[in-house]
């Protein structure tokens, strides 16, 4: 077993009476890719935001390289943040900036790199995700959703993070484009030797980018294992989810 990069234990988070995370335990090995699957609204995005420090968990521990990150001071949090990269569910591109400025943003504003130097890296990353260099001068509103995902990916890898989080990287894309994005994710993560934690409900995507899979249900991890074991997990939640059956232990609350 290689060393643990990221470890969550007993993470809880509630919004008022809405208990979203009920003690999440999760571990990701260095250089591996873990995909968390689970239905809409099960708290996948909330879990990522807790790890990123965008939300404060109510209790529990989140360790990065063995260092506790819950309750860190703003300065130390900044240090940890430099290890992270996040691809947001909606892309979250800065619409007041051109595509290349978006990609170079973390380098220029976050790391204080000179503009020319950052621009060169940005263009390189833009072509690496399969876009032509001229796209760099367009604004996010002027490009398609698929292109936005690519730009988002380029922005994430530009700062060479050690841990990358992907929040539903393929939702809203056609199956072919989704597959292209999956390939890009695998390539880019391997290039960087990064650790990846992704969340998705797209099983094709999960099978492609995962080394390990975990299933979240009602704010808890109900199964985790190797991606190869997905089809014979013996877990009824996983079975129901990957086959998309309406009846089973996962019931839709009639709300």
């Amino acid at each position, binding site marked *: 077993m290689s060393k643990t990069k990221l470890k969550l234990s007993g993470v809880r988070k509630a919004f008022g009476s809405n208990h979203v995370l009920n003690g999440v335990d999760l571990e990701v090995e260095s250089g591996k890719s873990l995909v968390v699957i689970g239905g809409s609204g099960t708290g996948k995005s909330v879990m990522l935001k807790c790890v990123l420090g965008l939300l404060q968990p109510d209790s529990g521990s989140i360790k990065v390289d063995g260092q506790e990150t819950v309750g860190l001071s703003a300065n130390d949090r900044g240090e940890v943040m430099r290890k992270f990269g996040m691809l947001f569910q909606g892309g*979250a591109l800065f619409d007041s900036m051109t595509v290349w400025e978006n990609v170079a943003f973390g380098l220029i504003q976050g790391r204080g790199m000179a503009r020319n130097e950052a621009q060169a890296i940005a263009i390189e990353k833009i072509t690496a995700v399969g876009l032509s260099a001229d796209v760099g001068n367009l604004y996010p509103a002027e490009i398609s959703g698929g292109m936005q995902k690519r730009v988002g990916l380029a922005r994430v890898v530009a700062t060479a993070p050690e841990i990358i989080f992907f929040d539903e990287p393929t939702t809203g894309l056609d199956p072919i484009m989704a597959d292209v994005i999956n390939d890009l994710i695998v390539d880019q993560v391997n290039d960087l030797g990064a650790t990846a934690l992704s969340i998705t409900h797209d099983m094709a995507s999960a099978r492609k980018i995962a080394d390990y899979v975990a299933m979240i249900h009602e704010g808890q991890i109900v199964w985790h294992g190797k991606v190869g074991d997905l089809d014979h997990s013996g877990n009824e939640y996983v079975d129901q989810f990957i086959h998309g059956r309406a009846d089973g232990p996962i019931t839709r609350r009639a709300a």
Partner: protein
Amino acid sequence: MTVHSKATAQQKSIGPIGLALHVFNALGAAVLGFLEKTGSFSIFVGRAVAHCFMPPFFGKQLLRQLIDIGYYSLPVVGMTAIFTGMVLALQSHTGFSRFNAEGAVAGVVALSMTRELAPVLAGLMVAGRVGASIAAEIATMRVTEQIDALTTLSVNPFKYLIAPRLIAATLMMPILVLIGDIIGIFGGYVVAIYNLGFSQGSYLSQTWDILETMDVVSGLVKAGVFGFIVAMLGCYHGFNSQRGAQGVGAATTNAVVSSSIMILIFNYILTQVFFS
């Protein structure tokens, strides 16, 4: 389901005591909610102000905001000032002529413009123009997760988004109001000379005689405070926007309404401080 059945059970067992408890419950919740809001707002203000003085500074963002908030507000503030000055001259003339006190027109225009009308009206106009756009822009960034994205790219949104707007609004409002003072007095002058038949020399000398440094300075201090209020409430409501387009709309409305009311309240407080 469970929540529903609990609620009906409560409704059934309600008596006079239950009703009283209900009222106290609601009252307590309202008070607690209010305290929580004030608390979170105070923390927000503290953090925002602290980040204005802590490096790194984002000079380009500040410059953009100085131009956006200052330069582009000039037409609005200028129009407001000139017509206010003109109508002041007209109104005070019709009023004072009943007492044969037309000589007071210049003074009334100068004092009302510098002390009250230029800062308050400019503040309200800027609340509508700048406060709304700050709130809408930041709320949209919140809703589309751009603010979270800033954080993950190691850029503090307080430094990058909020500090430049706060500084720019606080610095530019006094300059806008100073220009508004001049334009407003000029508006009154034009009406007095060409419409009411005053002589140029005497109107101007009356203006200079009555104006004191304190009149102008107090107006400029007010302007700075109003600028701060507009930017702060715009940022606060935008930053804490609820999800969705509705959230952005509500943030914008709340920013404009709350900053307009705060401007009027602080105008009274500051007038009290300066002139009593």
